[in-house]
Structure formats: C-alpha cells, structure tokens
C-alpha cells in the first residue's frame, strides 16, 4: 500500500462492497486500501468483473460501500447523506464515463455548463467556463453541435470538459476510451496527459495499457482486491509513453 501521507486527496480504508447473500454473495470490492495524492494520476487495471468500476463509484460517492471508509480531502464521504454527497460531487468530483452519458437534447456547450449551473453559478459564468473548457479540449468550433452530430472521440472530449467544469479535486474516469477507435483514443490520451501535467488528480479505470502508461501509479485489481501496484517512473516520459506514440 502506498502512503502519500499528508497530501492525500482521496483515501480509502478497508473498502468493501458486496451484493447478494448466502451462496449468491458477490464481493465486488473486497478490503481495498488506497491513497491518492494531489496531482497524482492513478490507473486501475484488471479483467472484466474485477470490481474496477464499482471501486470508482464508491470513491466518487455514486454508490454506498458495504464497509470501510472513503475520505475526500480529509472528510469522510461514506457516512454522509445523499444531499451532502450530491453537493460534494458537484464541487469536488468530476466523472468521465465509458458511454459518455451526454444529454442528447443539449448542445456541447450546454452539456458542459450543466455541472456549473447545478452548482449555482450564474448562466453567464457557466457559459464562459464551458466555452473555455471546450477550447481547451479542442472543440470550441463544435460548441453548438448536438451529441448526435459529434464523433465518439468528440463526445468523450465534451464529457471530459464537463467533468472539469467545477474545478474538481479529482476526476474519476471509467474506461474513458472503451468505446473509441484508435485515433479518438489518442486524442483522449493527450487530453489526460495535459490534465496530468496541469496537476489535476486523476483516477482512471482502464483495460487499455496506453492509458495506463500516462499514470504515475498502476494498480492491478482482481476479484475485488488489489493484487499489484507499480510506480511508473516519469509517467509518460518513460519508454511506454514513446511506444504508444505520446512522445514526439
């Protein structure tokens, strides 16, 4: 278990999530301890059904653990009410989903500004922030497009922009390239690389070694538990980064 000490922004201790009972009991997450430091990028890999996505949902307060603790910025979130969890999510956590999960009837800029509006920002400030983020992800020219008019990679970039809308403490990405082709995957990889360099704390669940290569730490998961942890020296400045085409 890594110890990032006083700079932990996200911490889990003895985290568990079980479904069913008796012979049908499934331990989706089984006694996970985790510390993620500010500005750190952590990749979680493992086979399908090992509990990666469930772990992410628990860390982001989208689901309640069956046992253990989760702390965000030093404050426990596993025992707070739904209302407090929602408020926490809008200000401290950004989610990126494999299926993008954009609102089909909203344009790209309207999708991005939604988080800010939910957080109570003025429409003008929310729109300004959304346009800045779309420029950052290279989609300012597509701001008025509906999701149906965007490619998969473009949709995921809109979703990443949305996740950054309220300047979250941590961005949780669940298989962000799972539905993308190679070219789109590279675009998203570069975005995550940029986020990492800007000091954004990232937790990425992925099957994709290329994504994992951008991380500071790689955690392997199996049957709900961590089985291995590797510190990747230099992140994308290592050999793996060059192999996946992230180095010039």
């Amino acid at each position: 278990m890594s110890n990032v000490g006083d700079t932990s922004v996200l911490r889990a201790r003895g985290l568990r999530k079980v479904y069913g009972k008796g012979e049908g009991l499934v331990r989706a997450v089984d006694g996970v301890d985790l510390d993620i430091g500010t500005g750190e990028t952590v990749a979680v890999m493992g086979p399908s059904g090992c509990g990666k996505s469930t772990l992410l949902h628990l860390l982001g307060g989208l689901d309640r653990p069956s046992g253990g603790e989760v702390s965000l910025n030093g404050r426990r979130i596993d025992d707070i009410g739904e209302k407090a969890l929602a408020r926490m999510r809008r200000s401290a956590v950004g989610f990126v989903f494999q299926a993008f999960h954009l609102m089909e009837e909203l344009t790209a800029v309207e999708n991005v500004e939604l988080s800010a509006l939910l957080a109570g920002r003025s429409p003008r400030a929310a729109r300004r922030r959304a346009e800045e983020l779309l420029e950052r992800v290279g989609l300012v020219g597509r701001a008025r497009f509906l999701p149906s008019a965007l490619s998969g990679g473009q949709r995921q970039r809109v979703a990443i922009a949305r996740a950054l809308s309220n300047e979250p403490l941590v961005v949780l990405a669940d298989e962000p390239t799972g539905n993308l082709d190679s070219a789109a995957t590279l675009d998203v990889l570069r975005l995550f690389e940029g986020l990492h360099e800007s000091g954004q704390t990232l937790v990425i669940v992925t099957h994709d070694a290329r994504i994992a290569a951008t991380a500071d730490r790689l955690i392997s998961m199996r049957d709900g538990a961590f089985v291995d942890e590797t510190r990747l020296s230099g992140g994308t400045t290592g050999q793996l980064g060059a192999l996946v085409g992230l180095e010039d």
Partner: protein
Amino acid sequence: MGRILLGGRLAVRDLRRRRIEAALLLLAIMAATTTLTLALVLRDAASDPYQSTREATNGPDVVATTIKPTELSGLEKLASAPGVIGHSGPYPVTPAKLQASGRTSDVQAMGRDAAPASVDQPKLIQGSWVSDGGVVVEAAFAGALDMRVGDPVTLDGRSFEVVGVAVTAAMPPYPGGSCLVAAGCIRGAIPADAGVPARLLHNPGLVWLTQADVRRLKPDPGSVSYVMNLTLADPDEAQAFADATPPQSPDAPFLESWEEIRQEATELAKDDQILLLIGAWLLGLLAVASLSVLVGGRIADQTRRVGLLKAVGGTPSLVAAVLLAEYVLVAIVAAAAGLAVGSLTAPLLTGPSAGLIGSAGTPPITMSTAGLVTAVALGVTVVATVVPAVRAARSSTVNALADSARPPRRTGWLIAISARLPVPLLLALRVAARRLRRVVLGVAGIAITVSGIYIALILNTFLTTQPLAAGYDDAQVEELRRVLLVWMVILLCLAAVNAIVITWATVLDNRHSSALTRALGATPDEVSAALAAAQVLPALAGAILGVFPGGFALFAAINAITGGDSDRVTLPSLWQRLAVVLATVLVVAALTAVPARLGGRRPVTETLQAEHA
C-alpha cells in the same frame, strides 16, 4: 387472411403481456362509452314508469280539452271520430286556490264520476275515490305539499277532506302538467318584476272532485272548461290523430297525444340526458388525452417488434395496422362493456316520479345506440393512436431493430430560459421540454377536467337556488344532482389516473437524465422536485385554461345547443375560480409526489449502467 390473423395474434399477445396498461386503456375508453350509453338510453329507461301507469289506469291515447263550454259539441264529435273506439268525459275543470297546512297553491280541479271510467281511471295509491266533500290529489302534487289522506284542505275557501291520492297517465306529474283552464297557466320560477297577470295559475297541481263539487266551486258555467279522454283503435296513431284534427277556430278543442304526455313526463330524464351527454363529451376528450399518453409509451416500447416486422417484409401500412389492431380490439371491448354497464345502471340513475307507478327498467340497446357508442370508442382510439402508430411504422428499420429509444426533443428557447432558474425549475423545464407532446396532453387533460368542474359548479348552484326555474321539485333536483355527481366522479377519477400515468411515464422516460444529473451533483430532492414541478406547472396552466376560456366556452356551447337562458344562472365567482385552480394544483402535486420522489431516488450507478447496456 394471413395478415389479419397475424395482426390479431400479435395484438392479443401484446395485450396479454402488458395487462395493467391494457386495463388502463380499457377503463379510459369505457368511462366515455358508459356515460354515453347512459345518456342515450336514460330516456327509454325513464319511459317505463309512464308505461306502467298508462296500463294501470287505462290511460287515454288522446286528451281533448276545450276552454269554452259553448264548444262542448266539438268535444262530443271527437268521441265518434274515425279511429276512436272509446272515451270518457267530458269532465268539467275549474281553477281554484288550495290551502293545506298553511300552504297555498293553484290547482286545476277536475270533476269526475264516483263510478270508475272506462278510459283514464286514476289509480289510487292511498285512500278512496271521489265523494261529495272529498278531494283526491294527484300523487306528485300531494308529495310536494306533504298532503295525506284525512288532511283538511280548502278550495277557494270551501272546506274539503283529502280522501285519496292517485296517479294518472292523462297528464304529466306535478310540477309538470297540461293547462286545462281558460285562465291559463305558467310554470317554473317567476321573477318578481315579471308583470305576470294575476289570473294565470302558477305551477297548478291536479285534484279530482265530484262533478257536483266542481259546479259548486264555480257556479258560473261559463268559467268551466272540459276534458275528454279518447281511446284509439291504434294507439300508435295518436300523434297523427292529434295533428290531423286542426283547430277550426281558436276555441276549438286542443288535442294532446299520449306520446306528448310521456315526453313531458320524462322531461327530467331529458335533462338527465343532457347532463350525461356533457359528461360523455368531456370524458371522450379526456379519454383521447389519456390514451395518447398510454399508447405513445406502449408503441415506443414496441420499437424492436416494428423493426422485426419490417425486416421480414412488412410494409409501413401493415405495421401501422398491426399496431392499431390491439387498440381497436380494446375499443370494441370497451364499447361492449360500456353498453352493458350503461344499460344496467340506467334504472339506478332515474327513479320514478312520485306521480307515476313502477320503476325504470333495463332499456333495450338499439342498433343505433350500439353503433354510435362503438363509433365513439373507435373514434377516440384512432385519434389517440394513429399518430404514434404511423410514426413508428415509418421509422428506420435498422434503428428499430437496435431498439434505439426515440431521442428527446430539443426546445432551444426553453433550455435557454431554464438556465436562469433555480435548479429544480431548471431541471423541471428541461424535463418538460424533452417531451412537449406529453406536456400538451397533460395540460389538455387538466383543462378538460376543470372545465367540467366549472360547468358542474354552475349547474349545482342553479339546481340549489332555482329548482323551480327548471320546474323541478326536491326529489327531481336530487336526481339531477346524482347524475351530475356520477359523471363528475368518473371525470375526476379518470383525470387522476391520467395524472399518475403521465408522471410515471415522465419518471421512466427521464431515468437516464435524472441519474446523470444526480451524478453531476443534483440532490435527490432537487430531482424529485423537478419531476413533480414538471407535472404541477402544466397542471396550473391547464387549470387556468379550464376556467377561462375552457369553462366559459363549454357553458356557451351548452346554452347554444340546449337553448338555455344564460341570464338565469350564476357564474362561479372569482374566489371560486381561484379555489378550483388552487385545488387542482394541490391535487396534482399530491398525486405526483410519490412517483416523483421515487424517480429522484433511483440508484444512480444501476441506472447509468443499465442505459449503457
């Protein structure tokens, strides 16, 4: 043939698969068909007591009246006219003032023989027949004045005793009735400043005395009129007989057929019928709105089936026909059920008048009634289902096979406005904007219901404050109120079901967006409030439209159709209208609270993963 069998088989199987929705569809259409059946058959049901009275009293086929004693020969000639096989009278009739138990009422006093007559012998339900000094009172009139056998009464100051209470088919029961006297009669409520001649009899009742007593009341033979009752060889020719014997002079006998008397005797049922037709119309409109919501959701869930049918060679028209078939089936069942329930309950709604004997029977269902009710059921169904069915039939086969959900509608201006609102209203407006058609149907449903409430308020106030203006006694007012209550209850129940169904459809349709919004930081309460507000705000709009222009327009239409006098009614006051709007909003909020709360608390991850799968 094969296609018909295919369509039928698919329709039946789909109905079996979703029984609750099929039951809701059936109930929505049946509410309209039952009320319409009641409206169409009520008068036939109400005719039974008159028929029973006619048989029991040997009721006349034609009643001939002359107000001039000098024209008595004209009456007597009628007794031997072609087609006449029997008669009784002529009997003298004179106007008088009756006083009983401190109450004064105008009456038409008819002189009869003590011996029974072959034509029109009123049937006693209490006491005995006329004797000197004894008066027999028409049953409905006796009930209205609370007179019993043995009560002392005076007629023009002369003392009499009530010796009997009887029913007759020769005249409609009180407060209806034919005018048999030269002084003339006026019925209903009379405004104080109407300037009506004092000699006119106001709402006169009917009493029978001996002929001698009548002559003692009015010694001047010139002031007495005469009545003769005729029996025809063919009673069905009575109206033709009355029409074919035009008056030779203004003083010639006036002829009234038994059909005309029955018409007036069942006048209450006619007003019941009008009320029920209003109810049936409103329920039909509401059923269209309800069905449109239910059918829209069902057809959306059948996307894959549509794709399969098209993939195996089904044309768009075949696909539309298959989709419509199950709803046509429900409509036919609803029509049959409505006809059955309506005809069986009609006797319960129309009690017999106190002036008739026997009770209302189950009326026969004629081909025209069955045809009209079925046509209405099919019409309501087709109007509600044709648009979703045709849309589904024209959808892309590939998209249908992929079971792609119909994308929500984008309403840019609503989205822009919503950004300026607090979070629950922001979400509510966007929920509504996703399915504007459903919102419009919700508004329409509430507007229809509230316009019905508006009309019910007007009618109830009218019946309460001015029953005599409509010519009714207390028992008849209660019957009209009962009829009004029946369709109001059905309307409110259907509207409530509609509101709940629309809310559930909205909650289910917004599963993904609700879960996503919560993932992005909306609290469960904010999402629940949004789902509820998405129903309450349209309900407010619908309630306001239902009062104005809905209620106003409906009332004007009813007056135009029935020839009513709108000056005689009191429109709901401003506070009553506001109370109706507020009550509607509160009721909708209460009905939608549970589905909205549940919708705001669905597990986020399960919902998002299910949508992704």
